[in-house]
């Protein structure tokens, strides 16, 4: 048995650093204040690292006035709850959070310097929103989920990642593995794959592993072999694709099986910036 949705491993593998990096991080005194309200009465006031529990029950006008030097992002309680309820159909928390953000942003009211603005998720407002919603982004998940790649990739596929040269030497082995399964453009399964049913010799061979996983999950699987130190560096960068493209060329990153189509996808991102 294995965990098909290993949230913890997903977090530790794809988001190794949880420190917010954007300008005006919420933990600073100037960070945004997130307010859930019900008919202009505050249900909850939230800001990272601050205890604002005393504001529950206050009026929205008071909050705007008190925090006029900060950005206040206002969420209508009923709309938020409707979003939470409808999101239970999503396969996992990553997708659910994305839906909450999307739904919230569609109806979000923000006050900055005491002025209220209704925001729309248009390109113009997106920069503003991105400033206050730390979307924990990983270059690989972002490309697989939300880019034009989705239009050219098969409807169902798997990515098998093998990290070599672990510094911590966990689990008594020097490699760490992770499997992502996408179906209909959505991340469906994620976690450490169960390779217990294939022999240790076959397990060392990424081609054999790919065949085994493809048979078991009934999707084509692409294996990517890379060093953990490289992964940790790239995972903290916004767009490491050019480095990855060079790493593929110099065989520092190996693709198994080697597919030109995959190489061209990486190159188009890394070298052409598409």
């Amino acid at each position: 048995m294995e965990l098909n949705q290993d949230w913890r491993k997903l977090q530790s593998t794809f988001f190794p650093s949880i420190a917010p990096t954007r300008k005006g991080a919420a933990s600073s005194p100037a960070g945004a204040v997130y307010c859930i309200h019900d008919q202009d009465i505050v249900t909850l006031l939230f800001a990272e690292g601050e205890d604002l529990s005393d504001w529950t029950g206050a009026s929205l006008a008071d909050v705007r006035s008190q925090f006029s030097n900060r950005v206040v992002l206002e969420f209508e309680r009923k709309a938020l709850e409707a979003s939470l309820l409808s999101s239970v159909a999503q396969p996992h928390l990553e997708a659910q959070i994305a839906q909450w953000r999307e739904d919230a942003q569609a109806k979000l009211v923000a006050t900055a310097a005491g002025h209220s603005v209704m925001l729309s998720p248009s390109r113009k407002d997106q920069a503003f929103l991105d400033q206050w919603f730390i979307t924990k982004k990983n270059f690989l998940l972002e490309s697989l989920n939300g880019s034009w790649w989705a239009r050219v990739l098969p409807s169902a596929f798997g990515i098998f990642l093998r990290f070599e040269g672990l510094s911590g030497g966990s689990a008594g082995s020097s490699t760490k593995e992770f499997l992502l399964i996408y179906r209909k453009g959505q991340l469906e399964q994620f976690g450490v794959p169960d390779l217990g049913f294939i022999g240790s010799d076959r397990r060392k061979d990424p081609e054999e592993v790919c065949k085994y996983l493809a048979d078991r999950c009934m999707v084509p699987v692409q294996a990517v072999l890379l060093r953990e130190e490289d992964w940790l560096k790239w995972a903290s960068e916004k767009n490491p694709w050019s480095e990855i493209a060079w790493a593929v060329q110099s065989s520092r990153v190996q693709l198994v099986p080697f597919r030109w189509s995959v190489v061209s996808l990486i190159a188009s991102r890394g070298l052409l910036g598409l």
Partner: protein
Amino acid sequence: MLGIQRNQPVGSPLRIVVNYWEFRPTVLVERLDQLIQRGVSEIVSFVPWQAVEADISHLLSKFLQAAADRNISVSLVVSPELAIAYPNSGIPRDVLQKPECLALDADGQPLVVISAPNSHALPSILSAEFLKRHQSYLQRVDHYLHDAVKRGGAHVLHRVRLILTGSFWKYYRTPRHSVFSAFDGPSGEFTPASLIQLRNRIEQRFSEQEFCEPTAASSNRWKTKSMEEINRRWFMQQSEEQFRSRAAQFFNRKSLSVSLEQVELYTPEVDPSFHYSRTMSLISGAKADFSRLADLVDEAGQRHSQVSGDAVGSWLHWSGSGAFASLSTQERQFLILKSLLLLGAQSGGVLIDAEEWFSLSESFRRRTETLARSLAQGEYRLRQRACYWNSHLWSSGGNLWSELSGRLGSLSQMIASDQYLQSEAAGEIDLLLVDPTVIFTGLQLTRILSWTRAGRVTAIPRSLLYTEKARHELQRILSGDLRTERLDLHVGLPFELHVMGQGKLVVYDAHALEKSDSPEVARQFIQALMGLAEIRNPCAMSDERLQVIGLERQSGGRGIFILNPYQKVLASELVFSNEVVIEDLAHQLEGASLDDREDFKAQRFHLEIPPCGVLPLQVMDARWKSDLEQREASRRPELPSGFADGSNAEEFLSDAPGSRPWN
């Protein structure tokens, strides 16, 4: 490291969670060997419903066998619980897809819980489909236990313990109400099926002889619209106990020689009062609200479940995939220590995810394990002084409970059954306060009165919620038939004071309490009750932001733990009612030699507590000791009269030894 002592007493209050289903069989064995190497001898594993239904490779049996081969004690949590890192918290997807199986809040909306790896609706335990499927889950667990014995022999189960919990009942609350205060607003579930069951149970209960006196028509008064909320609370409490009992009966009847333990398991990260906060932290990408989690630890430490009248240990669970994991190391250490002190010192403890535990520094783990061992051996324990009997454990106790718990903190507790008063633990309680929503039968009143006569103070409401028999009994007391001395008083609330034997009975006006709905009224009344019961806090901090947890030490003296839940250094004075000797407790717990010990004698001590720090002190207090020896007299040290306004501030001022925080 946790459990490093192989001769550690069974039932450490600090247990690590290693879920067998998170590993494939080969890795599982490796993992157990690693745990052995790290000195772990006792682990807890959740048994998700869906994992059991899908366990075609008999992983549970293999796990038990592998653990038995390594002499590892295993506690299997076989009640549905949240935050267990399994999709839908292990509840089968098809159950959650049936609208009739979903729990509804008072607004008729499904209750949604954020429990990584996903957010899902909460099922209704009262739904017939849920109960049917749950029964089949229990059968499958039983099947795997038998399978384990078949594979490895009877010894496989010798170190296995099945843990039954109160399941989802404690989470049936509406976030929009509980955001004000964790247990505010209507609790319980409101599905049409539950309403039908409520009606049936009401009919059944109030057809009992005692409720039909003096005439059969008398039973109707218990079924009126105004009684709905009171009856609902009773019904929810009864249903929870019934759910527990059914599971216990099943295993008692079916399973092999496996020990069964009833506990309460509470995960603050999925509490409804934390729901919006968690949503905002996930949407914004910010870390979780530490202060809310810290407050919820207090709530967990104060609510005491009972099963068939027996108190069960309360356990607090810190998961590896929720809000806890997003906190800083300092904050996580603070929460672990706080929960261990509050729950471990009263027969409960802390469950913590293995990866989270081993991510903490070795020195912190060593110190925490030392404390856990002291608690397991009964060296330190939390002696609670006041008890609040509510009709439903997971409902609000109103202004009276807010005031009582606010004043006494960890010295107060909430219960939901008078049978608790017959337990050994209740022997140390000095004050019992009964919520106005409790219905009294004759037997209950007699039980309470007899408990009171043994030198306690009991406050009961004067309300209409007495059966004829109970009303008659109360009338006898109030009219002086039982030769009690009576005083009519008005402190906050109008109440009558009756001296009964060595105890005191207070009958307060529930109607006046309801009418006033004022915290000030409750404040004055609680102050009066504490005065009657002679309950005083043994010490106090001049800065109220600091929390003090006082534990009694078996070998004499007290352990005083000062907690700073803030992100900045707080300086304060620790004030006792008389001169005491204090030492650095951290030294003692770490096994420092007697020569290294340094003590200080004073009445006031100046302390500086670092951010999220926990400062342990050993207090030797001759007066406190003599008070304990005269427990029946219930005399407790009082704070100096000038403490409140600081007029005695310079008297006996001394710096505390070391001021060395523990984390």
